Each structure stands twice: as C-alpha cells, then as structure tokens.
C-alpha cells in the first residue's frame, strides 16, 4: 500500500540519486508503481511534496519534544533551545537532501522559499504558544505592536540556524550547537524587559514634562 510517507521517501531518493526533480508526475508515478491519478490522492504537485518534507521534520521534532516530561517543565527559552537542538538532530537524517536543495536554489533557501511555507505556518503556531507562556511567566516583555512581530524574528533566527548548519563543517555540527545557544540567548535577552524599555519610559516622561 502506498502512502504519503512512502511517496516523500521515494521523492527524496530520486532527488538524491538524480540531482533533479522527476521530469513529470507521470514518470514519478511510474516509479512509485501507481497511476498518475492515484498520485493526486496524496499530492497535487512536487512542490507540495517538498513542503511536506519540511513540515514533517517540524512535526516530528515537536512530537518527540512533547512526549518528554522535562520539556513540559522548561521555560520558554529552554523550550525553544530544546526545539532547535532536536530539529537539527532530525535534519541530520536528511542532510544530503537539504544541502542539495540549497545548492539548487542558491541562496533562496534563506528567504521566501516556497517549500518552507507549511513549516513556517506550523512554526508560527508553535511559537505563539511559547511566546504567550513567556509573557505569562514574565520571561518575555509584552510590548504593544511589537509582540506580534516576535514570531517573525524567531523565524529569521530559524533560517539563520538552518543556513549555519548547512555551512557547518565542524565535527558533529558542534558549531551549530554553539550558534543555537548563543543566538537564542541573545534573542531572549532582546525580548525580555530590558534597558530599551526604561529608555522609552524615560523618553515618554521627559516628553510629557516638557509639554
């Protein structure tokens, strides 16, 4: 019986062995030993397979994390750290495919890559929860207008980590670990209550006074 995961697996192997997409859905269905019409029961295009590959990696990561009791007790920052470490572990299994994708699309994997879209949407939902928790626990400062933008920042961070990992040539991707640790530390420092808030507050005060 063919299913979605069999199709994605076959697609990845095809890409890795041939260095390019199958010429048509017809040709690919033949390899899968199903009819073209049957293929459309699962996917509408190669692009939707690619989107699914990224999204599956994300879903698997979160599932693994959420099954762990200690993860549930983590602070928002530690949750996100754990997410990145686990995600990068999962990426390892598909490194060749990802690196090949990157080469094919030159730098476009960094921004606006369509194949990352479903992953991005799921990630935003996941973040929403983490940010909300962080705000409730006073780990993250709730700022008018800005809070909604935090997720976007973390998405950029994710792309940064992905890019770093693709280029990382250190043993066991040790430098990626350092990059994750340091960048998450930094971003959480930025969104915590910090000097900037006091500055804005002081600015407002002076403004009121002088008026």
């Amino acid at each position, binding site marked *: 019986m063919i299913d979605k995961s069999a199709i994605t697996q076959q697609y990845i192997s095809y890409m890795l062995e041939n260095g390019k997409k199958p010429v048509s859905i017809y040709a690919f269905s033949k390899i899968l030993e199903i009819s073209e019409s049957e293929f459309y029961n699962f996917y509408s295009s190669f692009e939707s397979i690619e989107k699914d590959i990224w999204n599956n990696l994300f879903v698997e990561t979160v599932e693994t994390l959420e099954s762990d009791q200690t993860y549930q007790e983590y602070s928002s920052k530690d949750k996100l750290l754990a997410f990145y470490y686990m995600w990068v572990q999962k990426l390892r299994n598909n490194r060749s495919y990802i690196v090949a994708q990157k080469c094919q699309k030159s730098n476009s994997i960094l921004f606006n890559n369509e194949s990352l879209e479903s992953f991005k949407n799921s990630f935003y939902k996941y973040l929403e929860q983490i940010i909300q928790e962080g705000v409730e626990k006073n780990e993250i400062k709730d700022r008018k207008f800005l809070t909604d933008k935090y997720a976007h920042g973390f998405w950029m961070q994710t792309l940064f980590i992905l890019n770093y990992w693709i280029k990382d040539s*250190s043993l066991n991707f040790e430098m990626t670990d350092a990059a994750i640790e340091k960048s998450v530390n930094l971003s959480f420092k930025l969104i915590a209550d910090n000097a900037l808030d006091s500055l804005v507050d002081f600015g407002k005060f002076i403004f009121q006074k002088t008026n």
Partner: protein
Amino acid sequence: MKDQESIPTSKLERTAHFVSTGVKIGGNYVKHYTQRLLNQDVTKEDLHKDNADDIYETLSHLKGSALKVAQMLSMDRGLLPKSYQDKFQLSQYSAPPLSGPLVTNTFIKSFGKIPSQIFDSFEIVASNAASIGQVHKATKNGKKLAIKIQYPGVANSITSDLRMVKPIAVRLVGLSTRDADKYFEEVETKLLEETDYQLELRRSIELSTACKHIENLHFPTYYPEFSSNRIITMDWLDGMHMVDFLATNPSKETRNKVGQALWDFYDFQVHTLKQVHADPHPGNFLFKEDGTVNIFDFGCIKVIPQDFYKAYFTLIDQSIYKDEAKVKQIYEELEMIHAEDSQKEIDFFFPLFKKMIDMLTLPFTVNEFDFGDDSYFGGIYQFTEDLSNMKEIKESKKARGSRHSLYINRTYYGLYHILFDLKSVVQTSKKLELV
C-alpha cells in the same frame, strides 16, 4: 547559579568588547595623568585598579579561552600589580552556565541517551563552572559523580580569542611582541590540549594512579564508559575552596599538613614523572578539615623536556656560580641570554637573572621553608615591580626565557602562592638527582 543573560555572539562582537577595553584602558591612563597633574596623591595603584575593573568586566562577558587567559594572568600574580590580582582571582570560580537543553543535547550526541537514562539522578543546573566547561552533580549506584561538560565550539574559538587577548595581555605584563608570539604559541597549544577531553581523561587516570601513594591526597576515580569528547565523568569530591578553608581557621598543623601534601605532589611530578599539573590555581583543589586535599582537573599538563629540566634545576646548586662560563652556557640554553647579546646586555641581565633564580629557588636550598614569610613574598613582589620599571627591560625587544619556563614558572608561582596563603611550613629537602 544565575544564568548569564547573553554570551557575545560573534567574533565581531567579542572583538568589540576588547576594543572597548583597550579604549577604556587608554582613558584610564589619561585620567590618571590628568589627576596626577592636579593632585599629587593619586597613586599608580588607583590606575591599576581602574584598569583591572575594566578588563575584568570585559573578560567576564567572554567565555572559554579569554577566561582562561584571565586565569593565566592571575596565576602569574607575582608579575601583576596587586590590584589586577584580586580582580582576576574572581574569574577563577564562576563563569555562567549553559542551558539545560544543550547539556541534554551533548549527552544525546555522545551516548545516544539523555542524562536520566544513564544516571540515577542528574542535576541539570551546573554546580560549578570550569573555564571551558561546567560541572554537574549526578548519582549512580549510590555513588556521587561529577560530570564535566565542555562548551561546544571551544577549540574553534581559542585561536581567534587569543589573537584578540594578545594586545591587551602584551600591554598588561609588558612583554615585547616577539616574546608574546613565542609564549602565546605555547599557551595556544596548551589550551587546545585542554579541549581534548579524551587526552585529559587518559592523563587524569595516568597521573592520579602514579601519584596515589602520596600522603594526604585524594584523587577521583574516572569513568571512561561515561566519558566522551565533550564529557568527563569522575567521582564527586567534597571539600572546601581555599578561601572557605582558611575561613575555618585551620590549625598550624593542619595548614602544614596540607601544604606538605601539595609540595610533595608537585615535587614528585616535576622530579620523578617529569610532567606536571600546570594549573595550580586554588579552584583545582578542595581542602578538607582533616588536612587532606582533593585534586582533580588534569586538563593542563606540562611535559618537561629533559634538556630543559637539567638546565633549569642545575641552577639551584649555588656552587655552579663559581664557574661563570658554565652559568652563561645554561642561561643560553634557557634562552635567557642569547649568543648575539652584547657584553653590555650580558652585564645587565646576568645579575638580574641570578637574583631572580636565587629568589625562586630559595625553598629548594633549605630543609624546611616557611612559605608564610611575608618578607619572602614582599621581596619577590618588589623585585618584579622593579623589573617592570627598568628601562632596559622595557626597551629590550628580545625574548628572554624558554617557552617551557612559562608553564613551569607559572606552576611554581601558583604553588608558592597557595602555600603563602596557607602560611605553611614545608619540608622541602628533596634530593635532586640530575642525570
């Protein structure tokens, strides 16, 4: 322990930290000289204190090798003005810990298991920080264990960190750039060795086995099966840091007992094993009320080359100074004077080196030495102050002193200072066998 809120992320950011320190130090000098113009009472101590504050502030924002260099500098306390010493001492105990998820991730990468699958209990919050890693407490089969975990990417950043620390270090200790190159290479090699946990594990087992017979010392058992490139597992040792130990007002006998154990430990390593635990800062020893010492952390081992050993320790024998040609030859072997030196330079440095060596080797020449003697340390301190003020030395661009002497001197400075702080009287009458 509080998590540090951020670690400077990129090389650029780290550089920025150092640059601003440089600027601040510059500023402190300006401030110093302006104040001097207005007020004669401002002392050089004030300037040193300002500088030490700024440098420490910078270094405390950095991890890894920068912290290590701070430790190195603070080890050579004799070479540093007093106010730097106190500041740097701080860096020896605490550095900010890494996150729980990273600790877990390191275990998964090393063993494919999370800590709680390996140990009966594991404290995710680090109990203390080493300069390139941190230590966690765990238990297994009723045994308390200490698990040392290395920060990721340490080895990669050492070289670039050192390059940044260099100008500041050069300024601090007044080395010429050429001196610095030679010594920094030695430091870099040693630091890179310290990141090699497999090597450290092997050496720890070897050295602690070889030194097992020395009285009043304890070493942990190491567990290779729970160790990897980034993790070392050993027995958890109890005891007090030196400051806390001294705060309990240990008796004279206890202090002597502790001091003797440390002395014997180093004596045996230097003269018998010819390799030495070259990191005798107080954080690597834990003292107990009964006068025994726990020793761990064999990350920094200096193997003493035979030629160097022979030359260095021949100078302890005062009678050698009757034969000036021989002394000159030894000084040359130790790279303290060079064949191309002018007679004037030789005449200048010769007595200085003799005085320095006499001072440092004094404990070896007697049967019993009182390290609590203030005048001895005052003398060393005064001498190094004088040295750093001598025009001829400041202007000498030549490297003086073998690269090997760096860690050996550091070891003895460190040991002497611990013994000084302990105010121990030690039986030092070890017969040297020079082959």
